[in-house]
């Protein structure tokens, strides 16, 4: 049998009928269903599972849970499915699992870096980076390159994740975090009131500490009580059970984030189901029943493989039938850990001795051990471990905890396993997430949750209640109280608490750091945080250097910054700091834990919001037509808008020239559906427009359209568009595509918060209308063919709108123009958009009607000097800067939004940047959009910049390139030359001109 440490136990937690084969560091091993990778490795007698980060020391498995700092692996066999850094103690074994250590070169057993660590280790105290590698300055990047080579634990996958993830929202009365005895009791008691209960647990099955306990409940095995209770809960409609589900974060107003691992125990990649699911639970009441973590003791060479937590040893024995060694020495400050010696003894393997730091104990467990004939050294500590890749023995010496000294000669004991217990630390992490500061409880020598504004309860080990009977009764009581707070039940538990008898325990000792006969600075390394190689000496050094706040100590030494987030070492580190500074632990400070409780997969946090669902893509009703006609698309906000319509073999520039010429010479068609449209109704609609637009609206007649500009209260342009008067009290406002939602919110803001007395309603109708703009000298001819209304220039004037039937569809047609050509904007109900579009295309066929996209639209409007808000403006531009004073009402009674700001000092400067046209000296050269402008060509850096190019194109219609730009005082500088120093080192010259390049008199749009 290869599983040398697997005993013939009776645990039901593993299934001996299902043998699983797995590989670790290239070697094959076997384990059983129900094993974790850690328990399987220990079963196979694997000692060294990794190398430490800084000193490259061999490391073994220390814990059986989320505290594990050493057994951090790379799991997975392909570059797509590999997972960096899962803990072996929390990784369920599956057939074919492939794991490897994350550090160690060439391998963990023979590690060259370890030699370096031994030699250079003394040169690497905390903060050594800060003190060296500074000279010469130029070499830091090279030093850093070398440092970075040693960085990191596991490696990122190199290929895309084949798995998918999702999320679910839940609401409940009582959310219980932790499915150990306290949590299960609380769930049962809360659920019996009819409250909606959710209970989650990070392990693969409920039970928590009971899964590895031997203490009977109601005369039965603890696992039988768990089974019965879970069955009871499963039968209740109002209860949801979430095993394999880690609460990673507790957020404000009782939101609990849970990551359920759905397939990780089945294999590397499952097609059938999402790999992980994040549950977001909004709970009326939260019960934290997260229990407690055992604390290791800090002693010399306490990182040699074979040094473990006492309770972890018990867990491997009782839950997995694995005895992780042959000869045990147990060091403890409390009675509770004696259980481990008993468990070990019962497997038939040898307990060499128990080293108890206390002077004496008369507790039940101690007496039981005494009866078993196991040696107990009271008043002693294990001051140093011997061995390198496995414990070979320990030095045990009498100690004085009060003055931190060794008081007598050390005695050597041969052994291969050292279990230690310094007591228990409540798992307070989640209660800290919402800003609550933990408080020190002297009695249990641990932090417990502090005051909070959340609707939160805690019970069991988290409250420092450890005796099982007390844990259960506390759980039942807390469940009932929480349910009552959620409005269910009367606050008392009606059922009967199960019977269990707890051993009487003597007081434990608050001891964290075992003294050595040498000073800490000279003693063998005593590790506090294994993952970051933080030692007791390192912490004391940090204190000596003046890092006294616990936060400074943590940051200077990296204590608690590993992937275990200080679960194993923080309290010990604080205790050592306190001792070194002569303070108490609470004086030293508390430790604030942040989410994630344990590391959480990025994919799970993103859920299904990836790839095409990362952000909604919005489409117009004619999108399919655009696709079928080869359009390239531009992202405008969330919309996909046709950018241009290339024909086979065309370059983009060729397409644009074709689209522009067709429009100017015959007729083009644009899908303008994405423009925002707001239906404004009410007797004060006109007044409202007067207040939010810069221009006047009092006299706009029914059937007429007007262009308007909106400013923010700081006087800067933020949107523009055409608004038409539909009726005396009704207008339809158009906004920019990107500004639609913002403008509606803006109008509502002013109406609801400032001018509620105005009778006006706003409704978005953006999606209701499909809008197609036909533009060009033949546009009227196209429209005439399919429109039931006379659209001749006498009957349908520029800036009029009419109701008509177009291609059999009821339509609103606006005679407005953004191209400067004769132009009609046809609006039909969007369900008819596609059909109307097709009808217009058919009617236009004889005129070679040409679909064009946003780029051609931009060129054509720029030729006319029409601005695009957001391209030609940037939030620092007023209407006056745009030379658009004509759009500012001079006689408006109300001080409309933005007006007041124009009289500020900065707005009155005459050298403000102003909108102008630019003609490059070389008429074929298209200035880069974003090019900076200077007046003086020959300047040294830094140059005095006076503006920049906002829009720039080659005009096929005019036969030369042109641009729009903002230039300081530009309006009065027309005809002058400016220079544009480009990023390729060349400087080009251009002439300031009017921004209206094409048809300056506007004849074409008026025909």
């Amino acid at each position: 049998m290869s599983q040398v440490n697997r005993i013939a136990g009776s645990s039901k937690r593993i299934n001996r009928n299902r043998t699983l084969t797995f590989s670790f560091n290239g070697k094959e091993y076997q384990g059983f269903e129900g094993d974790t990778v850690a328990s399987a490795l220990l079963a196979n007698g694997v000692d060294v599972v990794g190398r430490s980060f800084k000193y490259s020391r061999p490391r073994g498995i220390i814990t059986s849970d989320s505290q594990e700092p050493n057994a951090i692996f790379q799991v997975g066999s392909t570059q797509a499915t590999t997972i960096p850094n899962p803990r072996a103690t929390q990784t369920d074994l599956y057939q074919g699992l492939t794991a490897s250590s994350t550090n160690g070169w060439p391998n963990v057993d023979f590690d060259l870096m370890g030699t370096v660590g031994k030699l250079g280790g003394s040169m690497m105290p905390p903060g050594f980076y800060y003190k060296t590698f500074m000279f010469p300055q130029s070499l830091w990047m090279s030093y850093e390159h070398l440092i970075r080579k040693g960085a990191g634990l596991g490696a990122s996958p190199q290929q895309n994740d084949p798995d998918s993830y999702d999320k679910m929202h839940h609401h409940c009365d009582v959310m219980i975090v932790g499915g150990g005895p306290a949590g299960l009791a609380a769930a049962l008691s809360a659920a019996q009131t009819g409250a909606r209960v959710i209970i989650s647990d990070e392990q693969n099955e409920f039970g928590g500490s009971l899964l590895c306990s031997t203490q009977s409940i109601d005369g039965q095995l603890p696992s039988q009580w768990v089974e019965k209770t879970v069955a009871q809960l499963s039968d209740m409609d109002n209860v949801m059970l979430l095993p394999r589900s880690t609460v990673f974060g507790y957020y404000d107003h009782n939101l609990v984030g849970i990551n359920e691992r759905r397939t990780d125990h089945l294999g590397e990649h499952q097609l059938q189901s999402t790999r992980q699911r994040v549950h977001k639970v909004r709970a009326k009441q939260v019960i934290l029943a997260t229990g407690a973590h055992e604390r290791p003791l800090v002693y010399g060479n306490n990182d040699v493989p074979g040094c473990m937590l006492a309770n972890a040893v018990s867990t491997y024995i009782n839950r997995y039938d694995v005895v992780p060694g042959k000869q045990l020495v147990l060091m403890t400050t409390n009675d509770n850990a004696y259980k481990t010696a008993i468990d070990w003894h019962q497997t038939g393997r040898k307990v060499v001795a128990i080293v108890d730091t206390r002077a004496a104990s008369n507790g039940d467990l101690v007496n039981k051990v005494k009866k078993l004939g196991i040696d107990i050294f009271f008043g002693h500590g294990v001051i140093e471990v011997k061995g390198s890749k496995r414990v070979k023995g320990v030095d045990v010496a009498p100690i004085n905890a009060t003055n931190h000294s060794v008081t007598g000669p050390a005695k050597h004991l041969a052994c291969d396993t050292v279990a230690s217990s310094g007591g228990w630390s409540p798992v307070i992490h989640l209660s800290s997430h919402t800003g609550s500061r933990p408080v020190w409880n002297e009695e249990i020598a641990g932090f417990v949750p502090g005051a909070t504004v959340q609707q939160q309860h805690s019970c069991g080990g988290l409250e420092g209640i450890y005796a099982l009977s007390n844990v259960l009764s506390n759980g039942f009581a807390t469940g009932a109280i929480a349910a009552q707070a959620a409005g269910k039940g009367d606050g008392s538990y009606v059922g009967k608490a199960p019977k269990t008898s707890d051993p009487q325990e003597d007081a434990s000792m608050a001891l964290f750091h075992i003294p050595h006969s040498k000073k800490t600075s000279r003693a063998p390394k005593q590790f506090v945080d294994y993952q970051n190689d933080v030692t007791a000496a390192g912490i004391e050094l940090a204190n000596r250097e003046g890092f006294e706040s616990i936060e400074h100590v943590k940051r200077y030494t990296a204590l608690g910054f590993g992937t275990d987030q200080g679960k194993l070492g923080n309290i010990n580190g604080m205790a050592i700091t306190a001792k070194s500074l002569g303070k108490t632990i609470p004086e030293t400070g508390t430790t604030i834990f942040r989410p994630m409780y344990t590391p959480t997969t990025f994919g799970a946090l993103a859920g299904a919001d990836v790839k095409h669902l990362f952000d909604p893509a919005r489409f117009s009703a004619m999108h399919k037509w655009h696709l079928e006609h080869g359009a390239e698309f531009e992202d405008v906000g969330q919309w996909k808008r046709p950018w241009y319509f290339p024909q086979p073999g065309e370059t983009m520039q060729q397409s644009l020239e074709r689209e522009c010429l067709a429009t100017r010479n015959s007729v083009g068609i644009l899908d303008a559906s994405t423009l925002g449209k707001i239906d404004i109704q009410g007797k004060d609609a006109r007044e409202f427009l007067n207040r939010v637009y810069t221009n006047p609206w009092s006299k706009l007649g029914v059937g007429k359209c007007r262009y308007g500009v909106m400013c923010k209260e700081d006087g800067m342009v933020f949107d523009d568009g055409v608004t038409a008067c539909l009726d005396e009290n009704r207008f339809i406002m158009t906004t920019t595509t990107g500004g639609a939602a913002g403008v509606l919110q803006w109008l509502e803001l002013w109406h609801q918060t400032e001018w509620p007395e105005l009778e006006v309603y706003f409704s978005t109708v953006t999606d209701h209308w499909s809008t197609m703009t036909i533009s060009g000298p033949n546009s009227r001819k196209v429209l005439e063919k399919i429109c039931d209304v006379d659209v001749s220039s006498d009957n349908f004037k520029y800036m009029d709108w009419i109701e008509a039937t177009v291609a059999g569809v009821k339509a609103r047609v606006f005679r407005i123009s953004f191209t400067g050509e004769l132009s009609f904007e046809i609006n039909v109900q969007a369900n008819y958009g596609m059909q109307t579009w097709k009808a217009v295309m058919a009617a236009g066929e004889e005129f070679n009607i040409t679909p064009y996209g946003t780029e051609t639209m931009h060129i054509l409007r720029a030729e006319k000097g029409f601005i695009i808000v957001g391209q030609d403006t940037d939030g620092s531009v007023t209407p006056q800067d745009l030379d658009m004073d004509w759009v500012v009402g001079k006689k408006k009674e109300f001080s409309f939004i933005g007006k007041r700001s124009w009289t500020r000092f900065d707005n009155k400067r005459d050298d403000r940047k102003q909108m102008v046209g630019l003609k490059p000296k070389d008429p074929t050269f298209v200035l880069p959009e974003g090019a900076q402008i200077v007046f003086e060509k020959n300047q040294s850096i830094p140059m005095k910049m006076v503006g920049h190019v906002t829009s720039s194109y080659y005009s096929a219609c005019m036969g030369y390139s042109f641009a729009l730009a903002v230039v300081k005082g530009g309006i009065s500088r027309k005809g002058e030359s400016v220079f544009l120093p480009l990023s390729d080192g060349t400087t080009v010259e251009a002439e300031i001109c009017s921004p209206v390049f094409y048809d300056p008199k506007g004849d074409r749009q008026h025909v």
Partner: protein
Amino acid sequence: MQQYSGFGLLKHSLSYHENWQRVWSNPTPKKHYDVVIIGGGGHGLATAYYLAKEHGITNIAVIEKGYLGGGNTARNTTIVRSNYLWDEASHLYEHSLKLWEGLAQELNYNLMFSQRGVLNLGHTLQDMRDIERRVNANRLNGIDGEVLTTAQVQEMVPILDCSTNARYPVMGASWQARAGTARHDAVAWGFARAADALGVDLLQQTEVTGIRRKDGAVEGVETNRGFISAGKVACVAAGNSSVIAKMVGMELPLESHPLQAMVSEPLKPILDTVVMSNHVHGYVSQSDKGDLVIGAGIDGYTGYGQRGSFNVVEHTIAAIIEMFPIFSRVRLNRAWGGIVDTCPDACPIISKTHIKGLYFNCGWGTGGFKATPGAGHVFAHTIAKDEPHPLAKPFSIDRFSSGELIDEHGAAGVAH
């Protein structure tokens, strides 16, 4: 001040590191200081250092209610760059970047300032116009910058998804090679150690509860350790600036928001540069320890809780996966929040006030870390001379009345 060097490290290792000096002392407050600086973060410590070093004012106290460098200095994502849009801002940040470049040697403290370059991705045509404009402005201001094509971006960061399948495909980027990251805690500690050596008193666990004034001038500060008289009081309290201002009945054009950041578990080196995207709203770099250091946008509500809402974390991680799909199986280790004081124009306030002897350096929003030495330098000048440093002048609080705002929302973008 004990000099640090590789040789020193070797020497101390022979004596088991038992003889290192304290990096700073722990003084009891004096009755009077020429200048009291409220706030012992990077900016406050840098201000003290430059006051002492360049202006000969050494009777200074830095008053910190918690521990040095414990606020935003300890909570940011450590990015340093100067590629801002407007002249005023880019000159200020470039001034700072130049100081960064020799700072480790000057302070004799390795700040691990790593000029690994920053990419700002463009995903839309307007993004690319803005990038072109900003890079051109930077170059003419003497600040390094390049516009990269998608292919160049892909070559520089092979693991970035530059395909057209992305929801918002990468269309290019701006690149500042001299930009990078630094070790945030070290910046505070380095300035603190150097200031302490010049005679500055660093008073930790000391909370200002009031500011005493007489005849329109400051007299000193009330603290939990008693009244401390001061010739000048300089407030460098970042997210808490409004709270301090209220002590003298002032309001500031500030809102304090939670700003969240997060790190993955440590990974083997995979990302050499800083990659930022305003459009998909996230940015990431990899620290020397191997963590992916990830930043988010601010939470929309105001908050002093040093924590924000979970949906910001969710969105930010989705954005990182949008850019780097291979990170999907990587795991998030820790998320936290700072309190950032944001100005309406995304630019700071470095200013005198209507109260004689009272100065404010605040409003850095998401951009404070990179400015640490530069802000300290120009603020020290402003305090010492009682008139703004030329680079600080545009950042006076008067700009909100005159309208001379410097709108850096585009370049400030998501937090950084």
